């Protein structure tokens, strides 16, 4: 819900008192259909929308109609038809689009979480083809709420449409430095990376990202954002080359896991290792199908299974009890799949 209110519309002179509107008879809202889920409209709202209905009915394309859409939009910025009609008038009357951009800037500042206002801004920029101020503007909004979904969607659109990639990685890095848990910033990092590079090819870039993740995880281990990102990067790396599993990730995990400190026992670390163990063990199980006597493989599976079962127990009873049912279920999967190797 927006924080906009009627106060922003101050009708010095009511429409019915304005000589330039004297030829228009406002259309009142049908009372009968307004008896259910009735909103206690303010007098201003009733008046402005009475005239707006009358204007829509005759599809009047005039300066006064354009002014009216401003009041109507401020009274309810979520009314998409008001914005739609305003855009028609903008084009029809050849209005100054820079002025409109100033207007929508103000409206977004007071309604930053409203869909229609961002949509309107996008339409203006599409007409103007001038994206110069857009990155600054979204940064201003994101300064107030660094996870505003609308602002991020809009920023991605601007960057993609006008190829404004140059400073985006720096911006993202700044945001992640300020708040390593800012998941919107992590998402933007992925957005940048996947558009800039072909991630099915770029070994080097992916390895750089692994280093970045490990540094951030080392700084704050219990951070789902960096772990999710790490998983995605590894998935790409493995696809490039199956034997390319980044050993440094495993080494990092093993060091953290071996400290035995509660602070290091993040559920994200444990579940990461458990999932790794699972996929590795499944691979080895496949190999065992062709060579059933490989003692070494069996021994490895046993090590992975025992380690995983240990972590799953710890997650269920100590480190992540809210998901105990899930961890217990995974443990039962391990026993079912690899139980014969753990004895």
């Amino acid at each position, binding site marked *: 819900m927006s924080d906009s209110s009627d106060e922003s519309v101050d009708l010095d002179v009511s429409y019915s008192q304005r000589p330039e509107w004297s030829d228009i008879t406002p259309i009142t809202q049908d009372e009968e259909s307004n008896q259910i889920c009735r909103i206690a409209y303010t007098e201003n709202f009733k008046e402005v929308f009475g005239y707006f209905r009358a204007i829509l009915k005759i599809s009047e394309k005039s300066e006064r109609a354009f002014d009216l859409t401003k009041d109507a939009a401020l009274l309810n910025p979520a009314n998409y038809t008001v914005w739609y009609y305003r855009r028609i008038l903008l084009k029809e009357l050849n209005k100054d689009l820079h002025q409109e951009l100033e207007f929508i800037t103000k409206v977004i500042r007071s309604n930053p979480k409203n869909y229609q206002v961002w*949509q309107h801004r996008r339409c203006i920029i599409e007409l103007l083809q001038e994206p110069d101020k857009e990155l600054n503007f979204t940064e201003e909004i994101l300064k107030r709420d660094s996870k505003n979904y609308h602002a991020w969607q809009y920023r991605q659109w601007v960057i993609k449409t006008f190829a404004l990639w140059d400073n985006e990685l720096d911006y993202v890095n700044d945001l992640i430095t300020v708040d390593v848990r800012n998941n919107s910033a992590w998402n933007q990092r992925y957005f940048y990376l996947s558009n800039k590079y072909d991630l099915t090819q770029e070994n080097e870039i992916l390895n750089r990202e692994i280093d970045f993740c490990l540094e951030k995880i080392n700084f704050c281990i219990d951070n789902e954002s960096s772990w999710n990102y790490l998983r995605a990067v590894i998935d790409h790396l493995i696809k490039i080359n199956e034997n390319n599993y980044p050993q440094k990730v495993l080494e990092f995990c093993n060091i953290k896991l071996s400290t035995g400190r509660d602070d290091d026992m993040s559920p994200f670390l444990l579940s990461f290792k458990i999932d790794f163990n699972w996929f590795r063990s499944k691979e080895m199980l496949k190999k065992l199908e062709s060579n059933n006597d490989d003692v070494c493989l069996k021994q490895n599976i046993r090590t992975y299974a025992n380690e995983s079962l240990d972590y799953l127990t710890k997650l269920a009873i100590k480190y992540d009890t809210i998901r105990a049912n899930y961890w217990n279920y995974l443990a039962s999967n391990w026993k079912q799949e690899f139980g014969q190797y753990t004895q």
Partner: protein
Amino acid sequence: MIDENLNPAIVEKRNEKLVKYLRQTLCVLPSAVITLDTSKVLLAYFAVSGLDILNKLDQLPHSRESLIDWIYNHQISETICGIDIGICGFRGSTTLVTDKIKNVQNHEYDCSHLTMTFSALNALLTLGDDLSRINKKAILTSIQALQLLDGSLTATSQDYENDVRFLYSACCICYILNDWSFIDIERAYSFLLSCMTYEGAFGQNPEAEAHGGSTFCAVASLFLMNKLNSLSKYQIFRLKQWCLNRQATGFSGRVNKPWDTCYSFWIGSTLKILGVLHFTSFPENINYIFETYNYVTGGFAKWPDCNPDPLHTYMGICGLSLVDYPSFEKIHPAMAISQRAFNHLKNLHQKWSENIY
């Protein structure tokens, strides 16, 4: 605290207040909710279905007939120019209606909204209506007109905002009307896939951050169009894990965001569809939802000590129903209506299939 939430006397008392809040929603709302002015049909659906889940449909503040008529008043069955370019379906309110004859497009700016059409159908089903006054052909033709090349849909003929929310609305409409021939399912599926993020869940549009509401819309859509099985095992695994990780006490909608009552529904329902809701903690979830309960007005808010609103109230009720809260009717997780209303729909489908001959 947790025991208190399940104490029958307390449950009863809170239900009474919830009923009061929902009844109020169906009568008069304060001007503070003015941005919902174009979404009254959605509000009515929340309130009517909320009462249904509470097993209190007998306490509607209006007669069923008048409510049903009121909803049908929002239907546009005919356009001015005769051809449909995404106009037919339901408006969200009569705010821009100018004529007495409401079921015809009143002027060239009068149009339906996909989410309102979906809400109207859900509310009608909940009220036991047989949908006989629905102009199916007009609505489905409209959906066809609103689908874009990338498979997504816009909400109206005026917006070019297109994202998973409206694809979900369209899937529900096709499911209810029991006709998928006006929507390109393959394209819709590929659009949904493009919204799946590196985190394993879905964003509102391609490349946007994974989000609980979008994830629900995507998963429910895949379920309704019978495409959930087309995801790989690994995709499903990551998706489940992402959703399960959303629980703190209540659920959050994005990674590292605070929990919020509505995600007990968005994420809860997604997990239910994926068959793993039982891996979450029900008591913690129930406990959080009631931390956002308003003891004076009876509704739910997003956070503790915030003002309740109709959306969070309905989402809270649905969230509770999903985790077997006592005295609540079960919901159908993908359609977001009571199982009873869903069964009524199934009966209608049966009748329609018999009537063909």
